[in-house]
């Protein structure tokens, strides 16, 4: 599903050059649930951003669902992200000025879908994460766990093949973290969604199919 070959990422300033990722090779199968672990600053989020086509590598190739994305234009990348990928972030990234339902609809705004279709799909996504009774609430009226569930609903509303989750339980207590993890596991199990999750939590990582460890930008496991 996702194939990374010799991925490198170098950050350059006038005076310093930092190697964030060093020759990463990774094959992620369709329907796999992979977790990425490592100490802070080891390049986990950079790797996830590159997989999510939010950042471009300094070297190497990326192949998602059989398509090489290196030569994609900005518009093609946006369309690809919109149709194939779903994102979950540690800090949720919900739009506080919009109610929950509208937040979930956001990815569908960039598709040719009608308002009715958007509402149907967003409602279904919220039902899936158990938040159908909070559709008209604003994010600030929700708990951390509920906000992350809204973020998951937003990630799955477009039925993506891959979900990229950057420390989805990082801001939550263990009970809420487990709830979120259960939802992700369920999505992977029932819908066959491929999930790549960056985490610091060894316990959560153990629940996934495979664990990849990074250290100083290099893959150590």
């Amino acid at each position, binding site marked *: 599903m996702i194939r990374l070959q010799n991925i490198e990422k170098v950050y350059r300033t006038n005076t310093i050059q930092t190697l964030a990722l060093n020759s990463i090779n990774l094959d992620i199968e369709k329907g796999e649930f992979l977790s990425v672990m490592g100490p802070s600053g080891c390049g986990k989020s950079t790797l996830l951003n590159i997989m999510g086509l939010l950042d471009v590598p300094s070297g190497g190739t990326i192949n998602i669902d059989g398509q090489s994305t290196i030569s994609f234009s900005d518009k093609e990348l*946006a369309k690809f992200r919109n*149709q194939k990928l779903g994102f979950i972030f540690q*800090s949720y*990234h919900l*739009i506080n000025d*919009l109610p929950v339902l509208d937040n979930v609809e956001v990815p569908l705004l*960039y598709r040719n879908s009608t308002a009715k279709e958007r509402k149907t799909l967003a409602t279904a996504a919220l039902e899936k994460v158990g938040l159908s009774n909070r559709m008209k609430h604003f994010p600030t009226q929700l708990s951390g766990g509920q906000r992350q569930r809204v973020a998951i609903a937003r990630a799955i509303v477009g039925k993506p093949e891959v979900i990229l989750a950057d420390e989805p339980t990082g801001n939550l207590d263990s009970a809420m973290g487990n709830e979120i993890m259960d939802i992700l596991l369920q999505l992977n199990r029932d819908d066959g969604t491929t999930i790549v999750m960056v985490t610091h939590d060894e316990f959560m990582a153990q629940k996934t199919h495979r664990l990849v460890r990074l250290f100083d930008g290099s893959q150590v496991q």
Partner: protein
Amino acid sequence: MFKHLFKMIWNKKKQNSLLIVEILLSFLVIFAVFSFALNSYNNYAKPMGFNYDHVWAISYNHTLETKNPDSVTLVYQTLLRDIQSLPLVVDAGYASSNIPFGSNHMSTGITTNGLYVDRVNNFFMDENYVNVMGVKMLSGRWYDKGDLASKTNIIVINKSLKDKLFGNTDAVGKFIGDKPENRKKVIGVIDDIKTDGDYQAPTYGLYNKQDTAAYIWMGRILVKVAPEANAAFEGQLYKLMAGRLKKSNIEIEHLDNKLTAYNKFTLVPLIILSIVAAFLIINVALGIFGVLWYNINKRRGEIGLRRAVGAPGSSVSAQLVYEAMILATLSLIIGAFFAVQFPLLNVFDLPASVYLFAMLFAVVFIYLLVLICSLYPGKQAAAIYPAVALHEE
């Protein structure tokens, strides 16, 4: 997408209220400037209605010692004949002090067939006025010598007053004034003349005949001279006047010079208002620019998220522009509500078309201003790198 953006703006109405008020105020000022300018242009485009070139206005005050009306009449009639006989004079005639482009105005109100018309300019002219000023008779006739000597109550009116009182029908032979003491028969209708300069609309006008008793207070002689008339001739004319009206304050002015001076009464306020508006527009432009810039920096996370979930850079840029346009539209809806009261309530007595066009131009201007001010911040928003913006949050 529009509904989505509108909902977001509506939910942030408190934060957006300052910008909405700022755009609203600038719309109202621009509407005022455009109304003023359009009205002035409309008036400027209308014909002057008479030929003021080579027309001189002699002002004098009545200083004759004799109280005998016949003697007074004889002196003034002789004086006019002598002026008319000067080699470079085409024609001359007496007029009341409210000559064109002067600061004196005499106005009255008249009721005809129950219709009251206010602010009607009341002119007193002799039989030579039409010839001296090149005024066009639209129907009927101007006064002749016989009229000036007779006691009949007759009047000449201008086209604006005729249209107001009698519509499209011919006014000649009809009466104005419902009260017996004011009742006068219309004998002629003259074309409108812009007595208050290029930029002021012609007003309603009553042109009364000047009888012999009026010589002692008329105070003006209008003289049409040949193009060759120069300062030396002006001196000759002055001497003639000074010789006949001893101790009188005599002043000779050229109507074209008076027009230039009079036009400044309109142009100077328009220029001042335009300068104030220009400063306000610069202020508003900087305000819009600043608020959008601030919004972008505050909303980097949201912009990063939109990019992540599938918005191309152009879409993010367009979103910022649309948001600014929606805010402008909210301001303009409120502004249009106030602006439309002007034609509805007939404020300042300007034609409704002036207000409507001014409103249209002001709306287009505001949209253009907002568009220009939002393009660059929109471009900057599109350039936000999603990976960086999402990491910042």
